């Protein structure tokens, strides 16, 4: 193991320990809440990245899966008293099945046309749910707050448990992402992204692996949706199915670095910081200034580092390694 790899491992452990201890060190509720938002956003970015980053199928409709997760657990809890932990699994399964149904026809479309189809499907689902009385339509679903604690996944006094649930979900999503990346499926995803016809000529079934990607991505996204519902205890189409949410999920990964393990985490830190900062500066919704700043940052990233924030680090690492090699070949003092 070389020095840089060691530094990376040590840094990773330090960051993980700091994150685990964060709610113990920082007790200010607004900061804990901020950290929860970052973790939740990062988890969504990591989930999106499996489909949009590794497999290269850009979805602009991920709010659908998020909404399915939020609605599935909430309806099951509000109407049938089912535990949200089981509701989270149910939401994941339903979102996966739904993703297979829409993925089957949509994956016949290439590039931008796939993105447009996902955008359209998300818009259709939002309108359908808004007009669906069984799930309270536009009024939305309020979750009961009478029972609090881990079994009900409701915490009314301190937000800290949500922090650990969000962190657990993020770590789980990173693990899934890492397992894909390291297995043949990850190689196939990249092959499909880089040249679909070449991949087919090597025996890779495009639809098979794209469906694996979307099902996994949808499952994880839906889990995030359930967590949101349990944290806010209220959902409506405008909060969990809205089109701007789909765009935000995609932005987190694109800004951070598509197809990298930790890029979406970096993207989430930057995006949520901007969002919360503008919200505090300019009032409740930030008067749209967060969107203006997002836009500016995306332009800057697109021009200077199209691979996202993660690409900046990767570039430095490559440069460092190249320097190391040169040092080995031409030791100092024995110059030519």
């Amino acid at each position: 193991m070389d020095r840089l790899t060691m530094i990376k491992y040590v840094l990773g452990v330090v960051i993980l320990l700091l994150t685990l201890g964060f709610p113990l060190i920082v007790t200010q509720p607004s900061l804990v809440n901020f950290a929860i938002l970052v973790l939740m956003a990062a988890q969504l970015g990591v989930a999106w990245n499996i489909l949009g980053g590794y497999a290269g199928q850009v979805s602009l409709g991920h709010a659908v899966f998020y909404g399915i997760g939020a609605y599935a657990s909430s309806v099951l809890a509000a109407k049938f008293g089912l535990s949200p932990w089981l509701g989270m699994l149910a939401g994941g399964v339903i979102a996966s099945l739904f993703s297979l149904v829409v993925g089957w026809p949509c994956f016949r479309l290439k590039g931008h046309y796939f993105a447009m189809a996902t955008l359209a499907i998300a818009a259709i689902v939002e309108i359908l749910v808004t007009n669906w009385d069984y799930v309270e339509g536009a009024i939305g679903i309020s979750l009961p707050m009478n029972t609090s604690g881990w079994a009900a996944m409701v915490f009314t006094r301190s937000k800290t448990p949500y922090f650990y649930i969000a962190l657990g979900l993020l770590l789980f999503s990173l693990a899934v992402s890492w397992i894909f990346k390291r297995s043949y499926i990850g190689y196939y995803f990249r092959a499909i992204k880089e040249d679909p016809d070449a991949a087919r000529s090597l025996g890779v079934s495009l639809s098979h692996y794209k469906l694996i990607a979307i099902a996994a991505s949808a499952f994880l996204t839906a889990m995030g949706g359930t967590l949101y519902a349990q944290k806010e205890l209220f959902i409506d189409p405008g909060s969990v199915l809205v089109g701007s949410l789909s765009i935000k999920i995609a932005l987190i990964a694109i800004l951070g670095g598509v197809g990298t393990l930790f890029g979406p985490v970096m993207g989430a830190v930057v995006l949520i910081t901007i969002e919360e900062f503008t919200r505090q500066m300019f009032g409740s919704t930030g008067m749209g200034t967060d969107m203006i700043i997002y836009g500016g940052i995306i332009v800057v990233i697109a021009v200077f580092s199209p691979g996202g924030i993660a690409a900046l680090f990767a570039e430095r690492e490559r440069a460092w390694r190249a320097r190391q090699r040169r040092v080995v070949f031409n030791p100092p003092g024995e110059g030519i």
Partner: protein
Amino acid sequence: MTAVPLLAVEGLHMVFGGLVANRDISFSVNAGEIIGLIGPNGAGKTTLFNCLAGFYTPSAGAIHFDGVSVGGQTPEQAARRGIARTFQIVRIFPEMTVLENVMVGAMLRSKKISAARAAAENELVFIGLEHRRDVKAQQLTVSEQKRLEVARALATHPRLILLDEIMAGLTPTEVREASQMVERIRDRDIACIIVEHVMEGIMPISDRIIVLDAGVKIAEAAPAAIAQDPAVITAYLGA
């Protein structure tokens, strides 16, 4: 009793709208043979490759591989059955390293990363690219990229490989090396069909040459006889 040929094409037609790209083409390839496929531009050589590799479904006619009818197969089925190909315009995975490119091919036969890596390393040695294994594929020269495609196709353990203009744009030395490479592939008991315009590259090594012109097979014979064939001379030089 005659053995079943590895590949048997009978009366193959490929029509695009009003354009007949392949008309009534029949030929067969035996295991371990090298077949040169030549013809002027637009003769239908690449279309024929696309039919054999499953990228096109022939409009009519039959293709049998190892005795099995494979006319309507998909490219991924073709690969699994043992028909590999390269592309006329190189189609590497540009952001992957050379080794990773070949590993994707090797994963058809072994889903384990370590086994796929070992198989890919062997193919890189075979093709002479092992010194470039950790370079991103897009950084290779065009002739290296063409060899990478061959290595990637070989990693799928084919019994028939379709090589589409792997010698185009090479220097005379490189052409000689490419010819030797094809012979070494044949020595692994893999049949080769080579589309090529570089005659000095394929004439010495081909067992037979098939000539297409305007979608029709106009000749099939040993290389020496092809050069004398009046129909071939007419096709290339005009009447």
